[in-house]
Every structure is written in C-alpha cells, then in structure tokens.
C-alpha cells in the first residue's frame, strides 16, 4: 500500500464524523466502497503512468494552413520584358524643372596632353519647382491583367539561364509564424527573382550577401528607402555593387502584389536577405 492511499483513507475517516444519523452498516459499506474505488483508481493511474513512460516519444504535429501561393517551380513560358522602345510613351509631364540659380561649375583647363582632369562637379541643388503632376507608371495600377502577367513572368528565370536550378524549396522552421507567412515569403521571392541581377562575375561573388530592412505601404509600394543592415559591410566596392543591385531590384519590383488583408504581416521585411550562392555557375 502506498503512502498516498493511506493518506486518502485517513482523510475519508475524518470526514465521516459528520453523518451520525445513518446506520452503521451503511457507513461501513460506503466507506469500504469509497476506499476500494479510490485505491483502485490510484493503483490504475500508477500503472498507466508506467505504460506511458515506455511508449516512444511523442511527435508534435502542427497544423499548417496552405496559403494562396506556394513554392511552385517556375513555368517554362518565355515572356520577355516589355522593350522600352515599344513602350507607348505616356503623356509628357509638366515642363522640366526650372534651372536653379546655382553657380555654373567652372572647371580648370586640363593640360594639353590627354590627361583628363578629375575635378568633381558640384551636385546642383534640387530644383525648387517640382513638377506638379507626374505620369504615374502603368505598373502602379493594380488590375487582374497585371497579376496574370506577373504569374506568367515567373518563367523567364528558368528559360534564360540554361542551368537554372528550381526555386529554393527550403522553408526554415515549421513554426506557427512561418506557417502563416510562408506564402508571403514565396510571393515576395518569386516577384523579386524577376528583378534581382546580382554581380555573379565578381571575385568570391558567392560571399556577396546583403541584408535590407524594408518597409512597405499597404499598396505594396516602397514606404521609405530600404536600409542596408549593419551586417552587410560595404567597405569594398564589390559589396557596394551587390548592395546597389539588391536595392535596385527592390525598387524595380515594387509595388509588390501581396494580400492587403494581411498587411500587418508584410509591412516590414527584415531581413530582406539576398544570397547569390545558389546562382553561381548559372
């Protein structure tokens, strides 16, 4: 008999002092029955624990909600980007800004031989009179055709690079947050892949990894200039070139097509991590 059972019996005995009116036989019977039930329960519980201990470790299962967009490999449809020559010219904007009254840069005359002077020119101040109306690029307009065009544009990456590998299917972690945002990550990845052209010909190009902190507006446009994170040193010109290539891609691909009702999940992309290692040898 375990000490816990003994304690249970003691507690029951003490509490039984309240009912003097009932017959002693009934009391004895009830006590015996209760004690028996409690003892049996405790013994069974103890036995069940032993069985549980011998069972294999439990595998937790997370329920993952499949999002609208997943890691679908690019379709092989060639959809060349619109050539600028064929782009219909939008209406000419307001007249060019008025020339600021900045003093004209007077450069020193270079020597007669071919020795171009390296005198930098002062950056002129920005014109005060800003254009009143700017032609809004067509791509800013959200419509179904644009979305369809975007889906079709997934193809050229595979078509243009003969040795291209399928899209990275590794989703790091299967936590609840990742499960909720995996489709957002895929959507951003597939969109930025059309615009990002890293400097793969640079020496040790696979090490030119850059990270950005990017804030987006609810319409998917870039809210403020992307900030290069401190982990990405731009001390050498190659890394600076890599950072600028990634920054250009961020701007070029905007506005991003993302579900508006989940803006809180994609308002800030941090880190927006650009790693060209998988593109080497393409």
């Amino acid at each position, binding site marked *: 008999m375990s000490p816990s059972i003994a304690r249970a019996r003691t507690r029951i005995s003490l509490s039984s002092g309240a009912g003097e009116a009932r017959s002693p036989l009934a009391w004895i019977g009830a006590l015996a029955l209760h004690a028996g039930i409690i003892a049996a329960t405790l013994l069974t519980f103890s036995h069940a624990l032993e069985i549980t201990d011998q069972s294999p470790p439990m595998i937790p299962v997370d329920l993952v909600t499949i999002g609208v967009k997943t890691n679908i490999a690019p379709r092989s449809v060639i959809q060349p980007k619109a050539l600028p020559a064929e782009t219909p010219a939008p209406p000419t904007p307001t007249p060019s800004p008025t*020339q600021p009254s900045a003093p004209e840069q007077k450069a020193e005359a270079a020597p007669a031989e*071919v*020795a*171009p002077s390296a005198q930098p020119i002062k950056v002129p101040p920005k014109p005060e009179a800003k254009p009143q109306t700017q032609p809004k690029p067509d791509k800013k307009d959200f419509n179904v055709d644009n979305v369809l065009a975007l889906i079709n544009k997934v193809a050229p990456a595979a078509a*243009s690079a003969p040795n291209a*590998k399928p899209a990275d299917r590794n989703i790091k972690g299967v936590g609840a947050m990742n499960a909720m945002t995996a489709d957002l990550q895929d959507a951003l990845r597939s969109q930025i892949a059309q615009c990002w*052209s890293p400097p793969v*010909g640079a020496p040790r190009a696979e090490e030119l990894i850059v990270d950005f902190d990017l804030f987006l507006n609810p319409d998917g446009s870039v809210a403020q200039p992307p900030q290069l994170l401190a982990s990405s040193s731009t001390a050498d010109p190659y890394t600076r070139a890599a950072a600028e290539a990634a920054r250009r891609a961020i*701007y070029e691909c905007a506005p991003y097509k993302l579900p508006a009702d989940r803006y809180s999940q994609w308002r800030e992309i941090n880190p927006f991590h650009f790693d060209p290692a998988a593109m080497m040898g393409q």
Partner: protein
Amino acid sequence: MRKFTVLLAALAALLLVSPAFAQLRVDVTQGTIQPLPIAIPNFNGDPAGAQIAGVVRADLERSGLFRPLDPKSFIEQIKDVNVQPNFANWRVINAQALVTGQAMLQPNGLLRVDFRLWDVAGGSQMIGTGKAATPDNWRRMAHIISDLIYERVTGEKGYFDTRIVFISETGPPLARKKRLAIMDEDGANPQFLTNGSYLVLTPRFNPTAQMIAYMSYISGKPRVYLCDIESGKQEMLGNFPNMTFSPRFSPDGNKVAMTLEAGGNSDIYVMDLRNRAVTRLTTDPSIDTSPSYSPDGAQIAFESDRGGSQQIYVMNADGSNQHRISFGGGKNGTPVWSPRGDMIAFTKQDGGRFNIGVMRPDGSGERIISNGWEDEGPTWAPNGRVLMYSRTLQGGRGSQIWSVDVTGRNERRVLSPGDASDPAWSPLRPQ
C-alpha cells in the same frame, strides 16, 4: 475594482485599434541575370557630345552587363547637365541608371566633357565629374567615361580604355602576310606595327607599360623581341644560340619568362630586363613552355608534357615546387593567370575540339567558357573579368578574335580588319 475594469477596457480597445506588426524574414536565393537598363542621351553642347554618348553606349552594351535603351524611347530631353533630371520620366521607360553630359570646346582649344551618372530608382547621383582633352581624343574620353560608369556600377575597374595587339593576316592563301597590328578595344583605330616582311607570333603585353614582347623571324631565326608601341623601337631580347619563344612579362614588368629550345629540349627561363641576367627554372627533359606569372609574381603556371600528355603545371617563381593542376581530361595548355589572381585561363583540346576554359589556381572549378570549333590562346582584360582568344573557323575559313565574360556569358566577335589571331590585351592606358 472599477479602475481596474476601465484599464482593462482601454487596453482591449488599444489592441483593437492598432494591429500587431511583425517582421517578415525573406531569403532571396534566385534572381535573373540580366544587363542593367541604362539611358544615355546624347551629350549636349558640342557635336562631339553625341559621338561620345554613342561610344559610351556601345562600350557598355558590349560588356554584356548593361543594356543601353533606345534614345527614341526617351521622354525627357536633358537640357542642362547641371539640373537634376525628373526621375519619373526615366522610371517609366524602365531605365535603372541615367547618364547625362555635355561637351564644350573651350577657349584653350580643349574639349571639355562633363557627365553625371544617376541612380534612377533611388533618385541620387552616383558620379559627377569632368574630363578635358584635345578634340581628336574624343574617343578616348568616351572610353574613360565608360570605364568610370562600369567601375561605379560593378565594383571593378573597367577595360574600355585599352588596346589589343594581334596578328593580322591578309592576302591570298599562298602568299599570306602576317603582321603585328594594334587597335582599340572596340576595334577602332587599327594600325600595323610591322610591315609583314617577316613572321611574327605570340605578342604579349607588358602589364605595366605600353610595351610588347613577341617572337619573330626577323633574321630567319626565331627570337623574342621587345617593342615600344609609342616609339616603335624594337630590340632582340638576349642573343641566344637557339630558338626562344613564348615570352610573358612578370606583373611588375621587370622580367620576361620565356622558353629556350636546345637539342630538342625546351625549358623555361627568366630574364631580368634591368640587368639581362638569365635564370633557368625547369630542367625536365620534356617540353616545358607557355609560362605565365601569378599577379603577385610569386608563382608561374606553365604547360608540360612530362606526364605523357600536355598538361598545366604551377611552380614557384624560383622554379621550386613544380606540380600538375589540370586533371579535367584531354590536353590542356597555354595557361594564363588572371590579373585578379582567382583564375587561370587555358586552352583545352578534347574530342577533336579546342576550347577556352578557366580553373582556379589549385586546379579546381574547371569550366569551359567558349563555344567554338577551334578556340585557343586566351588573354585577359586587365580587370580579369573578360577573355579574348583566337577562333579558327571550321574548314579553314579564316581566323577571328572573340571575347567572352569569365562567367561564360556574352560570347561575341571582336571586330577587326581582315583575319586576326593571337590577341594580347593591354593594361589600362595611362591618363
């Protein structure tokens, strides 16, 4: 208790009003290698401005890393290089970079060219500078501007203000004239350096000066000569009793490594140009030739058939530690160490074809980057990013010079007058 309830209600209201923002991590590992769309309107001012902009457009397009946009698509007309452009007008035609400039003939007779490189997306200036030279040097100024743009965008030095020395072949097949010739990197300004009365082969540039070494049969005997391109002055490099060939300068330009043949055995020697002292580096009874220094001058790559077939070896600059690095199959020869130091280019002979390949100095990472029938004799651009080589057309239909990016992209023919072979790329010209 009541205060507590009010506080709780306020907190709940706050939660309802401001949604919880989270940071989304996105790892981008795939992109699309494509040239940078760049808008280069004709420069304002002097008529030379339009010509300069045209050369800059051609230079950048040839690199394969830029895609100059058709000027017909431009919406905004740049009126003044000192006024910031309206970036929206350039974003709408998908330009990611913009070059504005102006040319002015100054009272002192010099042509002054000011230009600016703009980041269209970020709306900021990346370069703003000016150059001046005599008007007949407008092409060089254009190449220098191209180099500045290339360097600012890619992070590495440009190679447009360079020249190519090559062997020009003219005349009927039975009376072929092989002459040493030189032209700008874009094929402009071709000139002959020799008159074709004697055979000239394997020209090699001094990496620090406008001087070449080459093999010639001037007196009927094959010897290595030096030639100063600017003055045209030639001199024989040492008076050896036997054939000397396959010269190559050291990175500091003070030494020339070359092959000396004696009694059927070819070995690599090095001559110090300052005191003309000669040192023998290899002694193997096989054929050792085609030496090429590493950019730090500490090692030399060369080809040898000591193992039974022509392969690439590397040794220290004093001849010690000779070891084979090419194990990728076929015969491998004419190694040329990249000025960047990260690659050795070579000619691979395999399956009846000759192609240009690159490998790391330890022999790893071998890649074939040319696609011709018979490509051989690679030479590096001074930035180690682009290679040129000879291409012999199938069926003996002539020879051409081709170039390719080190990644294997952008293979294209280099324009040259007539048939051309054996190119040697100069260093950047002194400014």
